């Protein structure tokens, strides 16, 4: 209205009175202010959306990649197929994990201790044998040969590599070292004060810890109770010990799990320092140190893992193995196809989204098959045929009310009616689809009625005027024209159903299901439930999986909404 009115007032030749001018200014200002508010709101929501999506993508995208270990696997005939008959069943059940483990031990030879061997074997995923099995099953003639096969590593190893995959360097040693090896214990003697800098650093850490203790003592020493006195005495003792150690310059220090890890590496060997002196260190071999002897200047390096071993998940031994494998070029970061091919698993590196995707698809299929005909028919009847009386009014109001019922209530209804009364199977997409159909039916009826109402009455009247029956007029003319609107409403309703978890809780779809469902009566779960279940697991690696699954779910949703927009644009009629 103002758009039309304003130019007129400007074009008028007689001067506008001062009062009108002032009012006009106020109105302009109000309009500018309103626009600014709108712009601000838009910017704010954009920032939120970008931040949210960015955060999810940053967390989720790494889940689509996975570190693999490339091994030369010896496909021994006596392990895979002792009978030599090449029966598929025998080939399928052979112990391929053992073959992968053997290949790994060949890459890092000479590991003797039981503990170290176990640590090494745990770097491989429990599913490491699967690609070996796949290779053998697809081509049994490979048996007896040696093949390069990429196998999965454990989720913890993968997490470590994702965080710091470069391997850790070190400072090169200046002088020569003399190594004496007895079993796993290694003593390294230098000609000069090679390790003074490292020792000084350790002493600084000790001094800092002593200062922290002193501060704590000063804070609590005001109290009078026995507990306080005992605590002060205990802390003072600790602080004095630390101060004595920090003050004794050049005295050797024992390094435990609470100190940064220092390691000496040369050739293939790696020794973790347990006792650090200025010119002599003692330690334990993480990677075999051979026979010892003279190590030339520049051949060895001093490495440092700054975080104390007790304060991280990956032990020094594991890091040593992983660094070695990275150094040997055996680790590759590949796209994680398994994430889209596998069902759920308790091993993060083996868990996939396929089962939930298929489950979601089946559930939505049931919902769609039920909702669209019933919803559209109900809308057509209510809008076109139903007499306007008290009963239809009540039905109308209740449909609108139903759209506002909390979704968990539909789950309870599903439990009582479909499971307990009709004895349908638990956890089945069939029941999930039925419950979700109830949930979205009101949405679809409301949207379909609005779409039908939007078709101009002249079209129906023309059909009726040319002799069509009421039913013919509706089904041949009104409904086709209303279809784009009905489609849009349906797809938005489906997108709503796709994101639901609460009603599915009651009918047993919040469950651990490994097998990918093959039909609507098989046990299944859906995407949002999978996300919820993964988010609740203790393993760190499942955090990335959770975010990855959210990315997939968002993709699914965007695709559905995109289809809604496309349908609307494609079939939209203007009149």
């Amino acid at each position, binding site marked *: 209205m103002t758009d039309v009115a304003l130019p007129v007032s400007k074009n008028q030749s007689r001067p506008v009175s001062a009062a009108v001018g002032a009012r006009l200014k106020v109105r302009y200002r109000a309009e500018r202010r309103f626009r600014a508010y709108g712009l601000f709101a838009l910017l704010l929501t954009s920032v939120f959306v970008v931040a949210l999506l960015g955060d999810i993508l940053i967390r989720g995208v790494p889940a689509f990649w996975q570190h693999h270990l490339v091994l030369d696997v010896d496909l021994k005939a006596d392990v895979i197929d002792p009978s030599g008959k090449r029966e598929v069943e025998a080939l399928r*059940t052979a112990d391929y994990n053992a073959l992968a483990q053997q290949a790994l031990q060949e890459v890092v030879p000479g590991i003797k201790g039981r503990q170290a061997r176990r640590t090494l074997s745990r770097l491989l995923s*429990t599913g490491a044998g699967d690609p070996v099995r796949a290779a053998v099953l697809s081509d049994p003639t490979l048996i007896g040969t040696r093949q390069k096969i990429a196998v999965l590593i454990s989720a913890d190893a993968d997490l470590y590599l994702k965080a710091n995959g470069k391997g850790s360097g070190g400072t090169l040693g200046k002088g020569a070292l003399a190594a004496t090896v007895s079993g796993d214990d290694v003593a390294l003697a230098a000609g000069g004060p090679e390790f003074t800098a490292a020792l000084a650093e350790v002493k600084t850490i000790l001094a800092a810890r002593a200062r922290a203790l002193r501060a*704590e003592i000063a*804070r*609590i020493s*005001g*109290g009078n*109770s026995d*507990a*306080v006195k005992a*605590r002060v005495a205990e802390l003072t003792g600790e602080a004095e010990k630390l101060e004595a150690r920090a003050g004794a310059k050049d005295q050797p220090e024992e390094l435990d799990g609470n100190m940064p890890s220092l390691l000496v590496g040369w050739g293939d060997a790696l020794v973790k320092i347990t006792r650090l002196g200025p010119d002599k260190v003692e330690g334990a071999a993480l990677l075999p140190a051979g026979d010892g002897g003279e190590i030339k200047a520049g051949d060895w390096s001093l490495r440092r893992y700054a*975080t104390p071993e*007790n*304060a*991280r*998940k990956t032990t020094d031994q594991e890091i040593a193995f992983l660094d070695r494998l990275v150094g040997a070029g055996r680790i590759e970061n590949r796209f994680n196809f398994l994430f889209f091919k596998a069902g759920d*698993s*308790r*091993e993060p590196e083996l868990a996939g989204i396929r089962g939930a995707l298929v489950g979601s698809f089946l559930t939505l299929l*049931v919902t769609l*098959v*039920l909702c*669209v*005909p*019933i919803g*559209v*028919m109900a809308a*057509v009847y209510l809008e076109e045929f139903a007499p306007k009386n008290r009963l239809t009014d009540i039905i109308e109001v209740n449909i609108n009310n139903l759209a506002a019922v909390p979704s968990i209530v539909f789950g309870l209804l599903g439990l009582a009616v479909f*499971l307990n009364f*009709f*004895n*349908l*199977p*638990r*956890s*089945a997409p*069939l029941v999930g689809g039925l419950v979700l159909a109830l949930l979205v039916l009101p949405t679809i009826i409301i949207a379909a009625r609005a779409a039908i109402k939007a078709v101009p009455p002249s079209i129906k009247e023309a059909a009726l005027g040319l002799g069509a029956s009421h039913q013919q007029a509706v*089904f041949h003319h009104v409904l086709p024209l209303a279809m784009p609107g009905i489609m849009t409403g349906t797809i938005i309703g489906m997108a709503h159903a796709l994101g639901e978890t609460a009603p599915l*809780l009651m009918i*047993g779809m*919040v*469950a*651990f*299901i*490994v*097998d990918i469902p093959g039909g*609507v*009566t098989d*046990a299944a779960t859906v995407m949002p439930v999978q996300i919820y*279940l993964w*988010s*609740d*697991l*203790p*393993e*760190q690696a499942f*955090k990335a999986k959770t975010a990855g699954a959210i990315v997939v779910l968002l993709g699914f949703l965007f695709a559905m909404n995109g289809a809604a927009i496309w349908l609307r644009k494609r079939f939209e009629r203007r009149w």
Partner: protein
Amino acid sequence: MGSKILSVSVVALALAAGLGAAEARDQIRIVGSSTVYPFTTAVAEAFGKAGMGKTPVVESTGTGGGMKLFCAGVGEAHPDITNASRAMKKGEFDECQKNGVKDIVEVKVGIDGLALAHSKAGPKVALTMEQVFLALAERVPGADGKLVPNPYKNWSDIDKSLPNVKIEVLGPPPTSGTRDSFHELFMEAGAKKNKAMAELAKADAKAFDKAWKSMRQDGAYIEAGENDNVIVQKLETNKNSFGIFGYSYLDENTAKLAGVAIDGVVPEYDAISSGKYKGARPLFIYIKKQHVGIVPGIDKFVTEYVSSKAMSADGYLARKGLVTLPKAEADKIAANAKAMMTLTGAELH
């Protein structure tokens, strides 16, 4: 056109429903506690991978919900096994009996430590059970021994040797089984240690029970939801607050979190396994013996669960964060489980 679709879909639905009901179940169904869920699912996966049968379906319904489903009856529509983060109650057992679930096998599968933990960046703290009670109970004994609304704002108000920071503990809501356990293991034990409370217990047992069963509502205790990972994340950002969650979450986050020593015992694997750490509870699975032999694989599943491959200190369940039982006890339980010894009801309360 529309009516055709409608009738086709109705027929299809009826057909599918008929098939679903008629089909014999060849897959084990498990319900129950979300605390036991991560372990039972690991066994289920191993069971499926070893080719012993279809991978069982494991639902996470909570201990109470699981018991209800489990005790609802015998037959294909009812689950075969339920997970529980506490022993079956006498009432639940009676309900089972009433519905025809006569033979129930109880298997203790391990121990779950409840840990009080804080960020490694925060001050190091050791607490006693009594201090935990005083910090978190809604009403605590005042100077005259009578119950007063909890006056403690900072930890140092309770005991000078504790850090001078605001009491802020994140934990599960009342609907959670973990919360029930926390009340029983920490709050009740702590209340008993308190002199004034011990006297109250003798004088008025009801008031005593009410005292340890109610948490502070003034913001010192924050209900952070059922998801333990959320609590872990919040602790990372706020170094002065404490969190209550299962030991397996502490074990997974050792890089960032430190467990609080309770009565001088730090929540660590060995201390929990040996029973030295008092904030721990046993975990169970309950098996419907009447389904053994009807639904294929139940006996094999139980055998897998109690095998040393799964339940020993080196087993895969320990790697998933379960605190396993000492070997002698585990062997006895395994033998009982394989023999399918049923509950008589007398051992429950």
